[in-house]
């Protein structure tokens, strides 16, 4: 279980993962050794899994982002596995999520322009196996994207 100091530490680190141990120690009023011990324990427990660089696809020319909500044909026993495996082979798919609800799988798809999206959609998405229904939501603007947890 996390205690209050763990939470404060993770909250700070979440706001800026590039902070060094001495920075964190200063801000939390703990010694660097104690911060290191806490971080080590959080890593060992699998709470803290590391960090990754955020890529801004727009800066690379991918101006189109579409959320594809897919319903699968559940009469096929391997529908989920087959579909996900095939979706992984499409490089423009940047997220694959499965759900409990009206939607079975959601794909985040990026493309450089509308023509590129149309080509991708026809040639690589509609050809994915076991699709019963598919709906597209095109992102107009991203209002909030930090995905931070309210620790």
């Amino acid at each position: 279980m996390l205690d209050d100091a763990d939470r404060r530490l993770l909250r700070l680190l979440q706001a800026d993962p590039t902070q060094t141990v001495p920075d964190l120690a200063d801000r939390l009023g703990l010694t660097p050794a104690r911060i290191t011990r806490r971080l080590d324990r959080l890593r060992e427990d699998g709470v803290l899994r590391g960090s990754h660089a955020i890529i801004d696809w727009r800066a690379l020319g991918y101006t189109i982002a579409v959320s594809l909500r897919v319903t699968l044909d559940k009469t096929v026993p391997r529908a989920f596995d087959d579909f996900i495996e095939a979706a992984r082979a499409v490089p423009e798919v940047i997220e694959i999520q499965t759900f409990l609800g009206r939607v079975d799988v959601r794909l985040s798809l990026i493309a450089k322009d509308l023509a590129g999206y149309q080509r991708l959609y026809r040639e690589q998405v509609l050809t994915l196996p076991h699709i019963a229904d598919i709906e597209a939501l095109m992102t107009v603007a991203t209002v909030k994207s930090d995905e931070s947890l309210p620790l």
Partner: protein
Amino acid sequence: MILDELDHQILRALSANAEQSTKQLGQKLGLSQPATWRRIKRLQDAGVIAGRKLDLDAEKVGFGVTVFLGVKLATKGRVSLEDFERAIGAIPEVQTVDHVLGLYDYRLRVVARDLADFERVLRRRIMTMPGVGDVEANVLLSEERRPGPI
């Protein structure tokens, strides 16, 4: 920005793990430390690397439920989108807000401690917001982030 194969490899490596030093990364790619650093700096300056995200196990820090919500505004034109976006973005449990075209007007990613907690957030904070009409909820079961076209 035009990227070469080494830039692609740097992006791929850092988007999988941002905690490697420029020295470690350079060694893997056969680049010197200063050359690796210059390339990373160039990618940051061009905005391609937009920052760093801490990777936490949401369940282990107490957030067992993630829900994607499709929200339709009931009174289009009468509610200021800016006001709605500001208010919805200020809810701590709301992790992402996307304005979308299609079946819904907004797509939200919401975290909660459990389903009961989610119901509280939905009823007390989201459904009470002016303009919120039809809402569809889908509970996240699994999630996979892909490297993307690099």
